[in-house]
């Protein structure tokens, strides 16, 4: 029974998508019932796999139609679920479940809801199929289903400003990435004449690297890079996250880009086993570092709530890629931990943006303000998410970023010469990016939730309960994931990190015992991962400190409320209108600077750099395609020169 669960979980989504169109066309309740049934059922099935895979350390191999390998060749299509797949599978099903609950209310004012839910479940099935698949061509199919549904969902609110153009850009650049994956797949096939990941892994290791293999690796790497939206493939992501409905933005940042990250991990660690080549490590770390830096600095430039969150999403993926590229046990564990945390806090922030949009009807930072008075719960949840993403102690972002810094630092200490300096710089950039993340969330909170409430938002109400429930669940998860790094690491992260190196187990589960040894010669046993140096902090001590500080702030705030009074901004501006913006955060008549532009000074001083970023995101699809093609050419050239 247990080995049928992965395929059942995938089919539940696709069947749900089909039935939603068929039966849910007219009736709201039937539609909700089907969607909830599919998302809950898949989540439960993934949870049932926790025991055999995470706790007992098993790997599930499944041949569709029972077509087991014949004469040492995989002829069927296989699913293979190891701890790494399950880790991402759990993230996917969890995100889908919460997003489905949130969608019920959030899109209740739109028409064509049956199509929304159909595409939503197709997207879910595509991503889940990708992470559980054990077949390279099957992965390409799932990538295409995922991209297709994601593009359609981006254009879902086609009355909204820019949704159509961002869908088109996503499709154009995304299909370049898909073509790269397909071309890479067929290059691999021409070398080993099989599509099964396990067999490819065994045969490639036996053959060693040829020119064709290097080319195939480069193409697949670029393809998954496009799907993970690393810089310079990222502008499409910023547009799509911004214009899609918030429930879909959450799904994008929670699982669609994780699918790219998963593909990359599977590719470099298991299929090509290339991470002991130093030049590949440097390339991945470099790309990750550029991604996190460009992402966060572009975010400082934004004045739309969701677009700002989108750039932060890109920036956080940079952390994950950097950590993965280090190829140390700490790095892999930290990267996976941060991938999980990113799903939690970024989903939470997108849901908050959705709640603001649902209640106030806009996400423009220059127009919003003071919503904490009208939406206290959303404001509180937003602060949790903001604290988590900027890495403030009791929350999960701090724990995972700490592990990543530590991994970078240790890599710098272990390496020598140029590499040592490189990793040291990466560590510093990581810290700097974290600071800038905090800065830009200070800006968001002061221009959306604090400051003066504009008159037009006087009637704004708190988001409905059905939207707040998923937000509270995610906020609780953010806190729990930060407070329990020990158990989480023991039961989920360490098995998943170990799975990236357990190549022999991965191959033998699929191809039968002894196959790996027969093809690869002497199989090096799995290196015991060393987690003893992992420096988790004392969560409880930090929690106590945090509570004390919050209590002090609360007392001061309550005590001084009368004294501060309710001075209108115009009176302050008469004193010195030029600076009112910087401490008021409200719309000021006499100031040249918008209410959301808290870091105007920084932006002015670095105007050439920010101007360059602004020009880079020109909005013309040709430019984005040019960036993608140039980067692809560069990566291919790099691989041929240094591999």
């Amino acid at each position, binding site marked *: 029974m247990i080995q049928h669960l992965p395929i059942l979980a995938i089919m539940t989504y696709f069947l749900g998508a089909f039935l939603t169109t068929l039966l849910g066309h007219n009736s709201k309740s039937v539609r909700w019932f089907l969607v909830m049934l599919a998302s809950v059922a898949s989540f439960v099935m993934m949870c049932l796999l926790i025991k055999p895979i995470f706790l007992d350390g098993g790997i599930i191999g499944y041949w569709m139609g029972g077509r087991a390998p014949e004469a040492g060749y995989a002829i069927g299509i296989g699913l293979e679920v190891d701890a790494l797949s399950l880790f991402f599978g759990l993230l996917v099903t969890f995100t889908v479940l919460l997003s489905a609950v949130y969608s019920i209310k959030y899109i209740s004012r739109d028409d064509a809801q049956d199509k929304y839910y159909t595409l939503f479940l197709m997207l879910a099935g595509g991503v889940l199929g990708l992470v559980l698949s054990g077949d390279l061509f099957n992965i390409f199919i799932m990538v295409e289903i995922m991209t297709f549904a994601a593009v359609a969902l981006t254009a879902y609110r086609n009355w909204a400003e820019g949704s159509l*153009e961002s869908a088109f850009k996503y499709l154009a650049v995304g299909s370049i990435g898909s073509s790269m994956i397909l071309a890479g797949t067929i290059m691999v096939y021409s070398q080993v004449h099989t599509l099964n990941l396990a067999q490819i892994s065994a045969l490639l290791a036996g053959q060693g690297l040829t020119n064709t293999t290097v080319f195939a690796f480069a193409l697949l790497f670029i393809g998954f890079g496009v799907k993970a939206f690393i810089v310079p493939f990222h502008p499409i992501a910023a547009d799509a996250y911004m214009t899609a409905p918030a429930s879909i933005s959450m799904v994008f940042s929670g699982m669609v880009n994780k699918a790219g990250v998963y593909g990359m991990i599977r590719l470099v660690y298991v299929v090509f086993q290339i991470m002991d080549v130093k030049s590949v490590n440097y390339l991945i770390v470099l790309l990750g570092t550029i991604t996190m830096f460009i992402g966060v600095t572009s975010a400082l430039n934004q004045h739309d709530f969701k677009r700002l969150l989108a750039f932060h999403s890109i920036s956080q993926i940079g952390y994950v890629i950097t950590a993965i590229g280090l190829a140390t046990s700490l790095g892999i564990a930290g990267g996976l931990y941060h991938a999980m945390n990113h799903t939690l806090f970024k989903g939470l922030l997108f849901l908050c943006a959705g709640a603001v949009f649902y209640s106030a009807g806009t996400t423009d930072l220059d127009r919003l303000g003071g919503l904490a008075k009208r939406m206290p719960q959303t404001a509180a949840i937003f602060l949790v998410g903001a604290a988590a993403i900027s890495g403030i102690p009791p929350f999960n972002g701090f724990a995972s970023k700490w592990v990543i810094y530590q991994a970078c630092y240790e890599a710098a200490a272990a390496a020598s010469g140029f590499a040592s300096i490189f990793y040291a710089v990466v560590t510093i950039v990581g810290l700097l990016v974290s600071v800038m993340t905090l800065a830009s969330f200070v800006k968001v909170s002061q221009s959306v939730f604090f400051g003066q409430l504009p008159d037009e938002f006087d009637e704004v109400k708190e988001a409905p309960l059905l939207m707040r429930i998923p937000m509270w669940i995610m906020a609780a998860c953010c806190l729990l994931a930060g407070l329990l790094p020990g158990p989480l690491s023991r039961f989920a992260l360490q098995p998943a990190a170990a799975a990236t190196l357990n190549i022999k187990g991965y191959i033998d589960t699929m191809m039968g015992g002894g196959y790996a040894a027969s093809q690869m010669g002497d199989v090096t046993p799995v290196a015991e991962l060393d987690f003893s140096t992992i420096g988790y902090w004392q969560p409880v001590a930090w929690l106590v400190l945090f509570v004390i500080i919050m209590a002090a702030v609360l007392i001061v705030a309550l005590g001084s409320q009368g004294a501060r009074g309710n001075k209108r901004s115009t009176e302050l501006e008469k004193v010195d209108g030029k600076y009112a913006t910087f401490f008021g955060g409200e719309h000021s008549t006499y100031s040249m600077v918008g209410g959301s532009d808290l870091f105007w000074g920084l932006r002015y001083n670095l105007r050439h750099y920010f101007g360059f970023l602004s020009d880079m995101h020109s909005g013309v699809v040709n430019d984005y395609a040019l960036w993608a093609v140039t980067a692809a050419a560069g990566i291919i050239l790099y691989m041929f020169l240094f591999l």
Partner: protein
Amino acid sequence: MILTNYVCSILLIALGLYCVVCKRNVFKIVIGMGVIDYGVNLLIVSIGFNPGGSAPIFTARELSHDMFFVDPVPQALTLTSIVIGACVTAMAMAIVIKLKQKYGTLDTEKIRRIHG
């Protein structure tokens, strides 16, 4: 002989990429995406080709000892890939129609309300 196929497929992919990168008309970009697809499909079929091989469809009586086949797997992959390509083109066209309705133009330079 087979080298021509490889050269042609690379040429098609390069032409398609050129189209997506340089053409300012949205329609031409969609065509470029299609051409990239065709190039990749040609590559797939060429990789499965065996000079002198017959089609991998046979009955037991036709089978003789000196017969060999072209690889059927890439052909199956090509079929799937063609279907996906058609879907993507249809989807892109649907978006182009909506773009024309909303923006009144097909020029990518003018379809850039989201930027910065």
